[in-house]
């Protein structure tokens, strides 16, 4: 009787994975190799600052729980883990943590890789230097907006660090098209009277499409009025693969992760 399966399953306490912004690249049953290195590294930093007080640096600080075993008291899936972290465990001293989706994905990725993760292999990025990369070498602000600065042609990044996981952001930098949300796809349209419209898709239905055009106007088009209508699946964003050093990429990632919106 599942008409609205995901909502339903959430109500029933069943596991639904990757339905929202969890580390969806992971199938959710905890295979360490399924998690992106950037998520694990981000999670490690969060773990160090938020979790070690009780669970200790090695994950065995609370009696009867040892994260290194890969087993948890009640949680089986990533969804379960997310539930325990965000809701806490009443009466057991586990508080509810207010992590955003990116942070949650990171912490779970780290918990799944607490054995394998080698801190020395990752040099944590620096958000301040990352902002310099954003504005300088990366020239990200040429297309992207953060807060009240920058153009609106490309997606606004003001809260990117709250909505996308570290792994997803890193993959975006290296292979933008692989991570482009369908809603952000470039639209090219020509009206019957020859007007050319280029922009980024915001919404679409059977009869109409909504976009922000390259003059930063909100435009709604009725498809029946168009002579030409193309949606591109290739992102116009350039890949930064090989263009940034590992250190610069880590810094940029740290900066982007620091953008949590308002």
């Amino acid at each position, binding site marked *: *009787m*599942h008409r609205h399966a995901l909502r339903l399953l959430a109500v*029933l306490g069943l596991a*639904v994975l*990757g339905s929202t912004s969890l580390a969806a690249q992971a199938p959710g049953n905890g295979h360490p190799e399924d998690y992106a290195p950037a998520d694990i590294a981000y999670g490690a930093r969060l773990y160090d600052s938020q979790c070690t007080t009780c669970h200790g640096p090695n994950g065995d600080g609370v009696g009867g729980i040892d994260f290194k075993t890969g087993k948890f008291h009640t949680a089986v899936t990533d969804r379960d883990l997310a539930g325990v972290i965000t809701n806490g465990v009443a009466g057991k001293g586990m508080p509810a943590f207010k992590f955003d989706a990116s942070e949650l994905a990171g912490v779970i990725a780290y918990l799944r890789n607490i054995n394998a993760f080698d801190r020395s292999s990752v040099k944590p990025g620096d958000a301040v230097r990352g902002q310099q990369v954003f504005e300088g070498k990366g020239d990200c602000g040429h297309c992207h907006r953060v807060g009240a600065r920058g153009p609106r042609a490309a997606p606004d990044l003001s809260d990117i660090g709250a909505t996308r996981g570290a792994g997803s952001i890193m993959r975006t930098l290296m292979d933008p098209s692989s991570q482009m949300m369908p809603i952000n796809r470039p639209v090219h349209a020509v009206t019957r009277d020859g007007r050319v419209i280029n922009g980024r898709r915001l919404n679409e239905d059977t009869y109409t499409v909504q976009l922000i055009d390259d003059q930063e106007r909100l435009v709604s088009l009725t498809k029946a009025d168009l002579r030409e209508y193309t949606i591109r699946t290739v992102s116009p964003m350039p890949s930064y693969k090989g263009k940034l050093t590992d250190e610069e990429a880590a810094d940029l990632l740290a900066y982007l992760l620091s953008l949590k919106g308002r």
Partner: protein
Amino acid sequence: MMTRRATVARTVALLVAALAVRAHAQVTSDRLVNAARDAQNWITYSGTYFSQRHSTLAQITPANVKNLELKWMYQAAAPGGWQTSPLVVDGIMYVTQRPNDVVALDAKTGRVFWIYRHTLDPTQIVCCGANNRGLAMLGDTLFMGTLDARLVAIDAKTGRPIWNIAVADNKAGYSVTLAPLVVKDKVLVGVGGGEFGIRGFVAAYDARTGKQVWRFYTIPGPGEAGYDTWEACPAAQKTFCDPSAWKHGGGSVWVTGSYDPALNLTYWGVGNAGPDYNQEQRPGDNLYTDSVVALDADTGALKWHYQFTPHDRYDYDSVQVPVLADITWHGAPLKAMFWANRNGYFYVLDRETGQFLLGKPFVKVNWSSGIDEHGRPIQTPQPPGQPTWPGNQGGTNWYSPSYSPRTRLFYLSAWENYATIFGGLPAEYQEGRGFGGGVLRPVEPVPGAPGLAGLGRRGPINNWTETAGSGAVIALDPTTGERKWRFPTTDVTDSGILTTATDLLFTGGREGYFQALDARTGTLLWKASLGAQIINAPTTYAVDGKQYVATVSGLSLCVFGLRE
């Protein structure tokens, strides 16, 4: 010039006559059998016992449909999907609204006569919100099933309850969300609860007293025919196996059935096996889950069954409306049943015998590679982590299809190219608790990127693509299962479909459009932008010689008619 006394006498006589007419029962059993000839009214969930959701009203035509305008709206206040299909009897519309109300309205103006509010057990257990799909009517009495698994008879004139009986124990997860079906002097209902490990059934109640007349369990018990399809647990099985799986075997019935008066058979689609996704713990075919059952209308005795998805692991509820039609099949007359199943196949069965005649996919399917000559699907379970087509919500679902005897086409709302990654997990039965037994994952277009909340409701912004599936209205030639035409929609659709004798097709969708298509070609003729999901099945009726079309979008019940 009449004397005053004469005038009074005449007035009294007229009044008496009017009262006498009114004292007639509004909806008789005969009228139900002949509902197709009574097109100005809509007196049973699917329009007629054959459930074709086809009307012979012909005032609105492909030529004038562009002149449709909103005649009135009525708005409900309790949020959530509004799946109801209203009844219209002699100018009065009866409609259910959340949580479990009945509203009587003037079908011409939408103004309210009365509202009946059923007092629900505060602890009702339902899977998917306070859904109710509508009413049945006999005489001057309306019948409504409730979320707390009761059946209530309501006086159509006053909105007062006449009787109110328990159908099942809601604490154990039973509920009634379907519109009941009146056959002769009985009210037939099925129960929901397939996600709570219920043991499903169809039951008939005396319309006058509410006394149960018969009950057919969709899960046979020990000693009954079909019980052998709940096989004993193999000794060698290493994974969890439930030795008394049949006791909470599911098989809910939550969409209204059909009736063939000549055969005196009622047909009901049966829901998933419990637990939904972990078939390993319930070896065997698990009859009569995911089946259609043909029951004697007087006794509830099983005449035949056909199982669409044996040993289901995908929640492929066969809870669709059985569509009955008399057609010519390979040159001979056939009492046919058409069935577009959640599992992605379109079926033709002989409704007298249950014989399988045709099964053909109408969407991408990979859970099965075909159907053998006996009508049994050749199942091809996918490796763990790989997507299965169709996904958990199916190629279609409970949304009412339509069959037009004029175009001889079968119309349905489909989810195209939509898949789910399934995974089973052992589930221990606990009364009243979710009994799903699995992990579901949608196929996401951009792994790791933020999605909108699930597949359930996408909201006004469609952030999905063809990768995650899209929708369509599909017209099938039932004699071949071939597509005649297809009307694609960007978002998936859960709307029902209505056709009329002028070859118009009315349907809605998640994007909030209500549209009229040419039933022969699928060409768009007219649309209205109503701004919220349409998940009910449209109906049509006439009052004072004017045809109306009604649908529900969001929390607005909208009625359209021709501009004058």
